[in-house]
């Protein structure tokens, strides 16, 4: 023990300012009643500005998403920029992007829960909510891309007069199965740990809110049996949803990798897509946490610089992993010398979309690496917001490069044509607006901080004296 104490007080450590243990949420407990009141107040407090933003988002969704989609349905897919050889455009880019965003919720909530990372506690719900709403956007993009969306039910296997059965040999069908599984599972996973907080909200509400919480909290009281069943089900989910998360983006990557197209037919696409999803997802959590912290009342107590610091470190590691996979995906075709692969790589780096390709590398590697190595910067929320936005722009661009830009170069040069999106742009803006709208409305209806999990964590933490310093210790509460 003495050795440990000495190693903590190493020379150099004394030069820096000693960290106040109360900087850590887990070591700065407040009475549960107070935390409940803070969360309830954050849900109930709205302003004219809030409703102004909501109205703006509703209008954006109505015009940019619903209006443009109806127009597209009425006029046909010809109003999009899709044409030979680029038949998959921004709708598919958006779909892959939103599925990527959805990965962070599961990763942060489930994986960190399984690994017993205590720092996860205050922001798991914010991330889980992002998963569910991200998947809604992804599903929407698939339906938009279908064109004749009213025939979407053909994907469902049921006997019918024309003997049209889904083809389970097709990666698109695997995608349908994987995304369906993930949407259902992540929504259930969002709901389960929410039940005790809904019961808390029920105990503190009146009027229509009381009725709403009474119904959706299912009569939960917190008996030993109820907790036992809830924890058991949550444990099963935490373990089971992790491989599902990995499978979803792997299957999405197979939509591309199973073809023999240059740039797509890659065995590394599965993990490359998964790591890309985590990259954008974690960055999105940083954005969401910043928004929650800066716009919702009392959230500065729950969402602290330590959480941005943690996400920043995670993001840096994932960024390095992404760079590794990107290089892998680049090196093999470059070395292989296949003519069309070489042409595609050259088109990426020197063609009309070269600025996009370079921007991707700057956003996904250069800027995160330049900023996230520094602890002080990682603990600066607005800077993490900037990094989060930059990474998400970079990851959206990455999907743009993989899909429409890569589709431009085929083995038939006479078909080469640049993709120029048109109605896809307002629809994309509309999906972003819908995501933000859903999140804003949800923030007023459900507690974004799992108060019971925070209290459980705080109960398990103590400061332990080791030599001349106090270090945080945590007991295993599960």
């Amino acid at each position, binding site marked *: 023990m003495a050795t440990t104490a000495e190693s903590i007080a190493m020379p150099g450590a004394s030069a820096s300012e000693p960290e106040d243990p109360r900087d850590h949420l887990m070591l700065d407990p407040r*009475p*549960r*009643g107070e935390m*409940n009141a803070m969360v309830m107040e954050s849900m109930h407090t709205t302003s004219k500005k809030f409703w102004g933003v909501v109205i703006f988002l509703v209008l954006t969704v109505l015009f940019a998403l619903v209006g443009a989609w109806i127009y597209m349905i009425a006029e046909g897919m010809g109003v999009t920029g899709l044409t030979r050889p680029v038949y998959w455009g921004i709708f598919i880019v958006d779909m892959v992007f939103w599925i990527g965003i959805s990965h962070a919720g599961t990763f942060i909530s489930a994986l960190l829960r399984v690994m017993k990372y205590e720092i996860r506690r205050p922001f798991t719900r914010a991330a889980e909510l992002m998963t569910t709403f991200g998947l809604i956007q992804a599903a929407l993009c698939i339906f938009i891309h279908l064109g004749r969306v009213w025939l979407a039910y053909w994907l469902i*296997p049921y*006997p019918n007069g024309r003997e*049209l*059965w*889904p*083809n*389970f*040999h*097709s990666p698109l069908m*695997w995608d349908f*199965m*994987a995304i*369906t*599984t993930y949407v*259902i*599972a992540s929504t*259930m*996973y969002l709901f*389960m740990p929410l039940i*005790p907080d809904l*019961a*808390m909200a*029920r*105990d*503190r509400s009146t009027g229509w809110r009381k009725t709403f919480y*009474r*119904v959706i*909290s*299912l*009569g*939960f*009281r*917190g*008996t*030993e*049996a*109820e*907790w*036992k*069943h*809830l*924890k*058991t*089900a949550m444990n*099963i*989910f935490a373990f*089971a*949803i992790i*491989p*599902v998360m990995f*499978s979803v983006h792997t*299957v999405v990557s197979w939509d591309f990798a199973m073809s023999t197209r240059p740039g797509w037919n890659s065995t590394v696409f599965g993990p490359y897509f998964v790591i890309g999803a985590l990259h954008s997802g974690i960055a999105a959590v940083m954005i969401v946490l910043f928004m929650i912290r800066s716009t919702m009342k009392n959230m500065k107590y729950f969402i602290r610089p330590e959480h941005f610091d943690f996400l920043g470190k995670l993001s840096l590691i994932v960024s390095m992993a992404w760079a590794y996979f990107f290089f892998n995906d680049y090196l093999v075709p470059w070395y292989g010398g296949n003519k069309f692969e070489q042409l595609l790589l050259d088109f990426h780096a020197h063609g009309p979309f070269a600025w996009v390709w370079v921007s991707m590398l700057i956003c996904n590697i250069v800027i995160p690496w330049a900023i996230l190595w520094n602890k002080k910067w990682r603990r600066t929320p607005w800077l993490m917001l900037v990094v989060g936005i930059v990474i998400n722009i970079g990851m959206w661009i990455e999907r743009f490069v993989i899909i429409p830009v890569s589709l431009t170069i085929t083995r038939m040069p006479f078909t080469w044509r640049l993709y120029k999106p048109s109605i896809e742009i307002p629809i994309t803006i509309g999906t972003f607006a819908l995501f933000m709208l859903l999140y804003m409305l949800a923030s007023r209806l459900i507690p974004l901080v799992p108060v*019971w999990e925070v*209290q*459980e964590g705080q109960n398990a933490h103590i400061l332990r004296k080791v030599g001349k310093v106090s270090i945080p210790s945590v007991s295993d509460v*599960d």
Partner: protein
Amino acid sequence: MAEPLTLVVLFADIDPTVNAIDKLHEMGITDEKMDIISGIPFNQEVLGRPKLSTFIPRLAMGGAMIGLIAALFLVFGIPGLYPIRVGGQPMFPIPVFFIIAFELTMLGLMGTAFLGLFLAGRLPAYEPKMYVPEISDGKIAVVFPCPVEMQAQFEKAMLSLGAEQVRSVEAKTL
């Protein structure tokens, strides 16, 4: 003899709660008769109470099996009903089966685990119940039936062990 009351004893912390549970055992209240209600979960080991079992894992395994069977039907049954030749692949491809089998097995597993939460916890339960809202404020409640004539004795014992409140409650709609 009068109907027994239901007493709710509220504690702010876990240690006095555990002492109170031991005391109630001494006073003749068995584990089956009392319930501990709290705003955060506590292990039965922490409370010194008999371990609770749940059938959710077994149900989830059953759900996983159903998912697997559904995958078998989809991947092997459907091409049998309506054959489509794809890219020289066999009609009943094993690698494809693994993908569909994985997704549906996991869906079955998680779907039934979720369902199990409702079945095992008997949720939703909107009928009147013994409850006090202070529980979600972090208080720990020990709830047990108490003969009317012994109410004062139980109250005294619980207060001496650090209870914040001892009161009788009636079931009410939450």
